[in-house]
């Protein structure tokens, strides 16, 4: 049984002129445990909405998202929150670190709503991503690449089964992007987490053994 299974997933939004705009229409998609898949997609192909639906941040209009045997789309919001916190790590393109918190606190905050605060593990994650000497630095005191690493550590803070990465290298230069991507893939493997990464960057996509085109996957994007 796959870790993530999607069936007939649809999501539409109402445009300002009142029309219905379907952003996601995915008949089927699956991701196995420990698997790493890259989704290729241009801007406007519904990448972020697709990830939000998987993470339970958005509720689909139709279809099912099943994660670790639980149908996330059928759960009430509070349980979706709980499932997201305990089973999913999310790496955002803009990192979304909280500026008022230190690097360590950002990772601990990830744990707070998940499996509980574990200082030792949080520190070991930050050491693993090369930020042992930056634990008490504020994100704004770090370079973009370093901020990305904090985001990676935070995504793994709850020992998730699935890591979702939304254009994680989009804000990095080539050297940093390559390094960061390698780090994400390695740390996911080390932590036994599956990885679903979306990107439009061919260099990034070229690093993955499995690449799926969102245009083929998402009927809405193909239109």
């Amino acid at each position, binding site marked *: 049984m796959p870790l993530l299974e999607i069936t007939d997933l649809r999501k539409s939004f109402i445009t300002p002129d009142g029309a219905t705009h379907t952003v996601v229409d995915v008949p089927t998609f699956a991701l196995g445990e420990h698997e790493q898949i890259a989704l290729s997609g241009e801007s406007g192909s519904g990448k*972020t909405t697709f990830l939000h639906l998987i993470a339970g941040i958005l509720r689909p209009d139709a279809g099912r998202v099943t994660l670790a045997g639980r149908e996330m789309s059928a759960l009430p919001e509070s349980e979706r929150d709980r499932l997201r*916190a305990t089973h999913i790590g999310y790496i955002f393109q803009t990192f979304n670190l909280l500026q008022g918190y230190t690097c360590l*606190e950002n990772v601990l*905050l990830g744990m*707070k709503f998940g499996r509980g605060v574990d200082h030792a593990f949080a520190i070991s994650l930050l050491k693993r991503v090369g930020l042992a000497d930056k634990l008490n630095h504020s994100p704004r005191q770090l370079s973009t690449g370093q901020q990305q690493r904090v985001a990676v550590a935070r995504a793994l803070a709850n020992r998730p089964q699935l890591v979702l990465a939304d254009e994680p290298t989009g804000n990095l230069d080539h050297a940093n992007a390559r390094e960061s991507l390698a780090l994400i893939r390695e740390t996911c493997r080390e932590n036994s987490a599956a990885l679903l990464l979306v990107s439009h960057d061919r260099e990034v996509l070229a690093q993955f053994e499995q690449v799926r085109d969102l245009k083929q996957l998402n009927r809405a994007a193909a239109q």
Partner: protein
Amino acid sequence: MTLAHIVAKSLRQHAFSTVVTAASIALATGLLMAVWAVKTQANQTFTGVSGGFDAVLGARSAKLQLVLNAIFHLEESPGNLAWRDFEEIQRNPSVALALPIAVGDNYHGYRLIGTTTNLFTEVEPQPKRKFAFTSGRAFNAGYAEAVLGSFAAQRLGLKVGDKFHPYHGLLFDEKQQHAETYVVTGILAPSNTPADRVIWIPLEGLQNMKGHSAQTASEISAVLVKLRSPIAGKQLDTLYNKQGNRLTFAWPIAQAIAQLFDKIAWFDRVLALVAWLVALVASASILASLYNSMNERRREIAILRALGAHRSTLFGAVVLESAAIASLGAIAGFLVYGAIATGAAAIIRAQVGVVLDPWAWNPVLVWAPVGIIASGAAAGIVPALKAYRTDVAENLVPHS
């Protein structure tokens, strides 16, 4: 990393608005507590001040004016009474002590009161405590000698052996200086009563001061009366107030003062209303401050939600933050209260001689801060609803 930690972080991140809002809460809490505590304590203390007497006999007038003049040494004397009136009440078997007093002169605004040496030997200004001297001795009847209350001595800078010329009238006018020279023979220990603000001289001295009318020599301003039993008060009340129409017997003293507080009750209510309004405005300032900050915090809220925080958790965090600001303000409110109440107590002591203790127990010191914190928490509900309704996907990242 607890909810309290998240709230503390948020307070630190918005330190300026936190401090300003907490300061307004502190002002409201302090003002509310001060108005209430000073009002209740002044009421209790003033009605408890009797100077060691049960009643005052004076010229026909309002009882309140008589008590204010003879016990609190405020207001004008309502008029004089004859010496024989004093002798008559002194002879009454139900009277334990009758002390004649005469007023009409001052020294730099501090009243000179003529009386007998019985003041120092018989009167107990506080229960079971007679007047004590910190230095010197009592005056001798018939001599130009003076004994100063502790507060008057401190303010005037007079000590034993110093000499001074009294001034005519109850208000200081440098053109009204009397020719007589008085020498200070004693300074009284603080009695925490209006007597501390008085310069005591022999009765004859005030009666015979040059410039006073000849009639004054055989008159006094009032008689302070200590009764043997409360029943005697009722009898004398009937005798002087109902059967007679020339004199007023103010008994019991506390009742006359209670009339004063009844008369100024409207002022208490206005002050309390103002304090409540300030508290309301302060709570509204928490609401406005947090509500406005919710716009800039939408992304932060969305990130926390994406990390798995429930809506209810964030709702609770905002209400807790609001309560925390109110709590900081309520704690600081004790400093404001201390400043206002201490200042008010100092003014009351300087003006009346009555000592209030700002830190004496008063229920308002509990219910006002608790009420303010509760209203602060309630004020957080509206911004908390805004946080509750924040759309995660919309505020997290732009749609691609």
